[in-house]
């Protein structure tokens, strides 16, 4: 872990979000120091993805505050929010590649928008990024022509394009085969170790958790019910946590 002695990368206080009468997050407090890899566990539909979307400002919370690098992002004008978004890489659950663009163009999208690189530099950078996720052979394919796992890897390359300081990863390995899962986990781990990237990873895969997590938080009914390392959670006496860890490790 890299410590700058700076402010935490992400600090969340009293975060609440509901859709209609359904409260999804009900008072979340969370601090993620720079360089930490935090995994968020919880059953499907407990607001894990919503948490990530709130952090990057795709949704607005009902209450609470979110500070990124010490700057409050709730209610921030879009122009300033976008400055922060450029420092964050976001991998969507279904990768969310742009259908109308090739794999290479997808990865080039943030570079074309936010850097002054010329076409050659962009091509080099795209090739480098795609090589890092093992997709260098498929640069000219359209997203419709590649598998779900490949889409995830391209999505990851796109998220890494601008050298983000924070990565928000929504189930980076869900639905992937064990080998690809391990590769992606190693990639995320490498980013954390080499570049000190702070990551928040939403996942269901306890094996990935073991590989990646410096710390784990577990969500249930909008609250954080457990927090700590993998072993701490394994020893938890809370019936929900115990059941979750037990069911997960049986896979």
């Amino acid at each position: 872990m890299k410590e700058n002695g700076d402010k935490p990368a992400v600090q969340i206080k009293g975060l609440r979000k509901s859709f209609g009468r359904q409260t999804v997050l009900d008072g979340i407090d969370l601090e993620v120091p720079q360089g930490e890899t935090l995994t968020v566990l919880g059953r499907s539909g407990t607001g894990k993805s919503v948490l990530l979307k709130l952090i990057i400002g795709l949704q607005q919370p009902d209450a609470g505050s979110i500070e990124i690098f010490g700057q409050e992002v709730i209610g921030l004008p879009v122009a300033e929010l976008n400055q922060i978004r450029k420092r964050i890489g976001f991998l969507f659950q279904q990768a969310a590649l742009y259908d109308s663009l090739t794999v290479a163009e997808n990865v080039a999208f943030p570079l074309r928008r936010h850097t002054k690189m010329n076409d050659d530099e962009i091509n080099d950078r795209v090739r480098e990024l795609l090589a890092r996720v093992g997709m260098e052979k498929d640069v000219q394919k359209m997203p419709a022509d590649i598998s779900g796992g490949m889409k995830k890897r391209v999505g990851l390359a796109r998220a890494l394009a601008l050298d983000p300081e924070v990565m928000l990863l929504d189930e980076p390995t869900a639905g992937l085969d064990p080998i690809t899962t391990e590769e992606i986990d190693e990639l995320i781990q490498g980013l954390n170790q080499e570049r000190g990237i702070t990551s928040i990873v939403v996942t269901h895969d306890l094996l990935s958790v073991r590989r990646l997590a410096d710390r784990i938080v577990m969500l249930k009914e909008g609250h954080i019910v457990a927090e700590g390392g993998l072993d701490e959670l394994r020893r938890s006496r809370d019936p929900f946590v115990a059941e979750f860890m037990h069911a997960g490790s049986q896979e």
Partner: protein
Amino acid sequence: MARRTAVVQPDCRNFRIGQKNIVMAASAAATKERNPVQAFFEWFGELGQFCVRLVRAAVTPPFELRELVRQMDEIGTRSLPLVALAGAAIGVVLSLHTRDSLARFGAKSVLPTVIFLSLIRESGPIITALVVSGRVGAGIGAELGSMKVTEQIDAIEASAVDPWKLLVATRVAAAMLMLPLLTIVADFCGIVTGWVATRIVEPLTFRHYIQQGFENVTFDDLLPATFKTIVFGLLIGLIGCFQGLRTRGGTEGVGRAATSAVVISSLFVILADVVLVQIIITFIEQ
């Protein structure tokens, strides 16, 4: 009962599935369905907000010129064959119908003028708008709808790009710019095929036909009628984007977005035509 459960299930998928939630979702869905009047006004309210956001995105830099050109190609160039064909067909029909009617009054000699006037003033613009609303309205609705449900719009926003500028403003502007040009193409094709259809039954040279036709057509006939299609373009682009961006509920929702975009934009085009024609008559032609 089985059907009802099937309807509410998608709402519950994101949440903890329990008996209580299903009941809540069912009652929420029921209230929604029972209130078409409220839904109607909500729709207009949302459209108003949408317009405000669109204007704000359209007038502030940076401008997405590259995407605008791409959309002008997509909306304009690719609609060209369809619009040309529709215009040509209308030209033939006008010639056939009008010739017959005029012959009854012994006024067959004004046939070219009637074809010109009716194409330029009304048939050309409205046919172009309806054809484009079918092709482009559905296209925009389905494209933005599928981008919405697959989180591509979120992805654009997350990478610090304004989707309103990139997707909405460019499409609406492209539709507004291209419709008058397409209308002129439809007018031209209709005029040419109008002559062809006339020529088959009587000896009228093309030169004579054009001369006669233009004799009584002024810029006051051409310009307002052509420029009113800018409004049609606005409506087609606006409704297509609006319906696309409010898509909910997976692939089924995408289909609904495409259909509703076509239906609503065609309807709005026809209603707007009524108003615009009245405005043109009152302010320009009196």
